[in-house]
């Protein structure tokens, strides 16, 4: 049995930021994650946009947090040593109805103090972004919109939390929660955790985790969508994030030039579904949208498709909830339920919000020793030549390129494993291996060998993303 002041359940972006913010107080904090690594669920697949905030209802927690979080994103990313591109966005329309929608959004954003918003004519939009389809009638330009790699941010927050004393407990699933005289007992099937406060950040399962002890008036109806990724060498990529407001009022669409240089297209329109399986009609939808808005893109440049699942919050009667839901069903117990867009933007704000609640509840003192600075794995591909040469002189592994598509060296892979990567996907999330145009077909066998060597296991035991996803020997399927 282990005792903590606060236990955070769920090691996604939200849980990692909740844990990191709890470290600002003198609180013994544990972060429980059911899987073998952090950021493997909702955090691993989403649109990667840091929103400016013009899309939310003024006065709501979501709107307030989004505008504030956006303004502070450079500072946050500098502290956590994570690349953030404030590339700006153009929300574009192709007709009068959508023009009117943009105008409303502009007024909404203006009233909330979203900085720099401008309504552009179609010609102005085309001058700013020549990749757009001719026929664009207006655009809402938001200079503060940006993009960040969601899992890079989450892993950074987790490392920062751990460096400030939070205990990360992987492969630890909350199975039962009960009340004790001092607070709560969490059973995990391995060992029990007792604590004075609980913060439930279980993503797609947040309602069920709350129901381990309390009723949950909010239910999660998972909402899946498909995405495509285009090679960074693709021609006619936009420079800004492009958001499409369809004339028929249908689902919008985004094209995001990622920090890695690839182009992310999506999401598709979809019915509610629970798994991360891609659907063919979803892919066709994304392709059609891309062709409508950015006709110069070549589908041949597609290197990957994937599905994302969002925790869509619903009331008992099945109606959707537009706002973030922060439940406080019992003393010292908070649940973040159904945190979808702009959850990535607001991850730190939400973490700070619940950490402050817990700290106040526990009458905790501020932790003067908290140091928010974290250093990322130095990436060879992001270094200038002088620095890269110096890195090789200090560590020859920096001279050995493992992933030639994304320019990732052996030094980075070894450091990722030292920092906790135990799977191929764990290395990918920390270094970018396998994310490029060959999708790992040229580096996987080297990564297998490095993982096996560093983890002290056989290559046959190395997995893609946890038990059951063994790479070699046909896996352990029973067909």
């Amino acid at each position, binding site marked *: 049995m282990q005792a903590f002041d606060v236990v955070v359940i769920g090691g996604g972006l939200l849980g990692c930021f909740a844990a990191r913010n709890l470290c600002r107080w003198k609180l013994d904090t544990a972060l429980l994650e059911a899987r073998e690594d952090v950021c493997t669920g909702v955090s691993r697949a989403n649109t990667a946009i840091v929103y400016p905030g013009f899309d939310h209802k003024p006065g709501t927690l979501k709107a307030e947090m989004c505008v504030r979080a956006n303004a502070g994103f450079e500072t946050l990313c500098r502290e956590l040593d994570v690349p953030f591109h404030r590339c700006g966005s153009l929300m574009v329309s192709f007709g009068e109805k959508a023009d009117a929608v943009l105008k409303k959004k502009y007024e909404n954003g203006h009233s909330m103090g979203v900085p720099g918003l401008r309504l552009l004519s179609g010609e102005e939009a085309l001058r700013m972004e020549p990749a757009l389809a001719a026929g664009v009638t207006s655009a809402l330009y938001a200079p503060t919109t940006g993009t960040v790699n969601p899992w890079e941010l989450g892993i950074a927050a987790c490392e920062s939390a751990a460096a400030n004393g939070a205990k990360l407990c992987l492969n630890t699933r909350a199975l039962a929660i009960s009340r004790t005289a001092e607070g709560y007992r969490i059973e995990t099937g391995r060992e029990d955790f007792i604590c004075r406060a609980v913060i439930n950040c279980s993503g797609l399962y947040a309602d069920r985790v709350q129901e381990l002890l309390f009723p949950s008036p909010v239910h999660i109806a998972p909402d899946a969508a498909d995405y495509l990724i285009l090679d960074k060498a693709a021609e006619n990529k936009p420079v800004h994030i492009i958001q499409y407001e369809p004339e028929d009022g249908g689902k919008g669409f985004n094209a995001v030039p990622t920090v890695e240089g690839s182009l992310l297209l999506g999401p598709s329109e979809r019915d509610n579904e629970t798994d991360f*399986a891609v659907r063919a009609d979803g892919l066709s939808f994304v392709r059609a949208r891309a062709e409508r808005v950015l006709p110069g893109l070549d589908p*041949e440049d597609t290197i990957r498709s994937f599905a994302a699942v969002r925790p869509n919050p619903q009331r008992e009667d099945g109606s959707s909830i537009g706002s973030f839901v922060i439940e406080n069903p019992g003393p010292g117990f908070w649940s973040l339920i159904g945190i979808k867009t702009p959850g990535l933007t607001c991850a730190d704000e939400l973490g700070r919000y619940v950490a402050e609640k817990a700290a106040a509840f526990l009458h905790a003192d501020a932790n003067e020793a908290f140091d928010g600075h974290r250093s990322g794995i130095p990436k060879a591909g992001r270094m200038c030549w002088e620095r890269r040469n110096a890195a*090789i002189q200090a560590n020859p592994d920096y001279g050995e390129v493992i992933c030639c598509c994304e320019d990732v060296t052996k030094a980075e892979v070894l450091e990722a494993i030292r920092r906790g990567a135990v799977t191929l996907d764990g290395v990918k999330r920390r270094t970018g291996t396998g994310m490029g145009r060959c999708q790992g077909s040229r580096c996987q066998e080297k990564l297998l*060998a490095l993982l096996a060597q560093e983890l002290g296991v056989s290559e046959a035991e190395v997995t893609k993303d946890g038990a059951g996803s063994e790479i070699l020997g046909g*896996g352990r399927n029973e067909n």
Partner: protein
Amino acid sequence: MKTELLIVGAGAAGMAAALSAWEAGCRDILLADRRGLPGGILPQCLHKGFGLAGYGTELTGPDYAARLAQRLEKTGVRFALGTEVLEIRGDKTAVLSDRRGLTELCFDRLILAAGCREKSIGSLPVAGTRPAGIFTAGQTQEMMNLHGQDPGKEILILGSGDLGMIMARQFTLAGKHVIALVEKDARCGGMARNFHRCIEPYAIPVLYRTTVTQIHGAGRINGVTLRHLDSGREERIPCDTLVTALGLIPERVLVRKLGEPVWLFLAGNCRRVHDLVDSAVAEAEQVGRSAAIRLDKAL
């Protein structure tokens, strides 16, 4: 650092171009490759069938590579193995990385002989999950023949190109079950010679006018949905491994922004995809002879 002729890629084409450039009188040649040994993909091609046109006999890939390497040993061509070429610039400099550091190299002419990459399944609109157990054919060849890694047991192959057929035979000989090769066209995608040698003798089924529309399995792949294109009928087939042979893409990323400067030559599969190594070599020898001559003297 300086070199007159930089050749990127020490596979069959790069080595052949280096040899012919040397024989044509060029005395300052550097042959760079990211791999630790010369030969490109030849060392992983353990089957026979190389060199019928060039040597009049059927060699294995490693033997073919060794013949080129032995001839190169008698020249003054310098090798830079285990070396990644990070950048090629329009001002005729290149940045090379190895375990000793970065090198900025000035060259007068450059032959890109970087081969191909395999088209990955990510480029196709295939539905379903993204589990472990999906490989390209060349990847399984490298895994099995160079690293002793076993990709799987119940294997479906998507595509019927040469690499797919060659691996179908190797899987079968290694005691694995090749469920079928799945080909969207009405005919085999590779050479008839490979069909007669690799597919027919082992009675490996080839499903024509068929494709994979969906991948199943959470951790490891446990099946695919096949679609028979003419009837529209779909069926789910269990497998633990999906191997893709979807075709080859010439690897020209390093020079994509350079246009077509007079100092840049392409050789081998990055120029165009060759069915036979002998034809890649014959073409590369011509390229090597052209690139041997100084640009100011060529005019």
